[in-house]
């Protein structure tokens, strides 16, 4: 069943979000349509105030849309109202988050930062740490497994954050400007890793970015402006 979910990715139809009421109401999203296939990394770009963060928060089930339909991993989570009772469990099990800053838990070492999510889901400490180490090895940071976040470089911290987002094998990952604090070389390395992981785990990844360095790497790009999206083909420039 989990494999079947992962085959599906993200599908959004007519998503709307209105803040406030009456004369002060603001329509942040005015009918967004979007589809991201499993294994695909798409870019979401747009100017400040265009609705990027609102869309990300709706997809991340942290704010409730006003109307529309959202399907994640083959499961309809919103259809003019939440279709899922436990949004916390939904975020834990089906959505991975990568932030502009890594936001690692400063008092946990690298392994436990990554292993925390499966632990929260009820897996044993040993199994959670095994899953974490596997991912850390895949992301070439296993040698820093016992280090504290403050001892890592920016690139290492962001790779650990990616490992944390992937450790529960979610069908969807939402990345909010994940390369903003990194130089070109490290930014491209992060995008490379995201593409590799998307294909390896059949994960649909949306990357919100302003970063001119990485925009040419996307196969597809969604532009968002005034609460509406339109899709265009990206350059899809090869990495190697």
């Amino acid at each position, binding site marked *: 069943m989990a494999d079947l979910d992962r085959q599906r990715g993200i599908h959004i139809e007519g998503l709307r979000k209105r803040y406030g009421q009456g004369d002060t109401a603001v329509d942040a999203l005015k009918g967004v349509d979007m589809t991201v296939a499993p294994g695909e990394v798409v870019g979401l770009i747009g100017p400040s105030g265009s609705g990027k*963060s609102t869309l990300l928060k709706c997809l991340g089930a942290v704010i409730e849309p006003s109307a529309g339909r959202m399907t994640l991993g083959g499961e309809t989570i919103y259809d003019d109202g939440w279709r899922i009772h436990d949004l916390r469990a939904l975020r834990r099990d089906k959505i991975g988050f990568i932030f502009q800053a890594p936001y690692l838990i400063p008092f946990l070492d690298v392994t436990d930062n990554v292993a925390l*999510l499966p632990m*929260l889901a009820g897996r044993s400490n040993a199994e959670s740490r095994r899953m974490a180490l596997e991912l850390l090895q895949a992301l070439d940071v296993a040698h820093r497994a016992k280090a504290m976040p403050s001892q890592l470089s920016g690139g290492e911290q962001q790779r650990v954050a990616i490992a944390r987002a992937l450790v529960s094998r979610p069908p969807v990952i939402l990345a909010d400007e994940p390369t903003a604090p990194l130089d070109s070389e490290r930014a491209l390395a992060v995008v490379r890793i995201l593409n590799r992981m998307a294909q390896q785990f059949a994960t649909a990844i949306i990357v919100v970015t302003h970063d001119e360095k990485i925009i040419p790497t996307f196969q597809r790009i969604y532009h968002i402006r005034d609460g509406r999206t339109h899709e265009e083909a990206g350059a899809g420039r090869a990495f190697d």
Partner: protein
Amino acid sequence: MISLAGRDILHAWGKFAFTGVGLGLLVGVTLTMAGVYRGMVDDARVLLDNSGADLWVVQQDTLGPYAESSSLPDDTWRSIRNLHGVARVANVTYLTMQVRTVAPTPPREVRAMVVGISADGVGQPGHPGYLVAGRHITRSHYEAVADIATRFQLGDRVRIRRNVYTVVGLTRRMVSSGGDPMLFVPIKDAQAAQFLKDNDALLRSRGRTAQNPTLNRPGVPGLLEAVLATQTSNSSVNAVLVQVEAGTDAETVAAPIRRWKRFTVYTRAQMQEILIAKLIATSARQIGMFLVILAAVSAAIVAFIIYTLTMGKIREIAVLKLIGTRNRTIAAMILQQALGLGVIGFVVGKISATVWAPYFPKYVLLEPGDALRGFIAVMLICIVASALAIQAALKVDPAEAIGG
């Protein structure tokens, strides 16, 4: 599941340790205040225990001899001694005063309760039960036995009013209900010291008496001398202490003294009630107020610290909530940190109170029961104090982690 609170404490151990030490000093002060109260109660109990009395016979309608002044004729004991069930009786006087050493030099002053006891009555009520050095008083004048809290040494010479006394014995834990160490002297000396006037006052008094034609009649030789003698001597004591025979109920002995001798008589339980419920009641309330304020200050400090620590982790808490951490896990983390701080504070406080208690001028009695109650109170305070931080943490919007 790993302990998030434990990891955070280990990560920021310096902050927790210093905060815990600060809280611990407050807890230590709180435990010491409780110890001061216990010490006062114990002083009162010791005063009664060491007096060796079962009954206190005092002036009618007074709470003497400790809580109010009381004056009885010094031959009262004779009529009480003959009552059925009485084993021993003894006169006693108490006066609290500054006592100065005259040798060795330099002179030193100590506030002490001077107790007048019969010189030949070792084992009588009122006498020090045991000595740690020297001997009991054997002469009728100018010898003294001191509690070691006076820091007098054997052979020291101390002045009480006009007379100088030699310390011949040292005893321990003989204190007044106010915690002042006792200095035992022969009762005749104590009676003189209690009511002795200065020379000028005596001269003026004699002059007034001599000018009174009623008291200085030319036809009655010796009358003036007799009157003057009564004015310059004291035949009163503060109380008569009574020991009843084994197996005799103290109340059955007290009843006829009250009825026929027209004195007020207190049993041990009644005297304890006077000392604890009346004499130190105000002090107890004072200490109680301090305890309440200290508890409130401790709670405010813990609340402030835990709130500040939590506010410093708002972004991490938002991330934890976003990735699916339950509210109860976050609340438990904050609560465990507050309790951890409480444990550190209590341990530091208990150790501090134990270390500094002996240096207090008055007796501080740290009871294990108070420590247990203190520990429970600290834990409860920490639980209550963490509520504000938990409430703030639960209000954190997971969307804050995404920004925008």
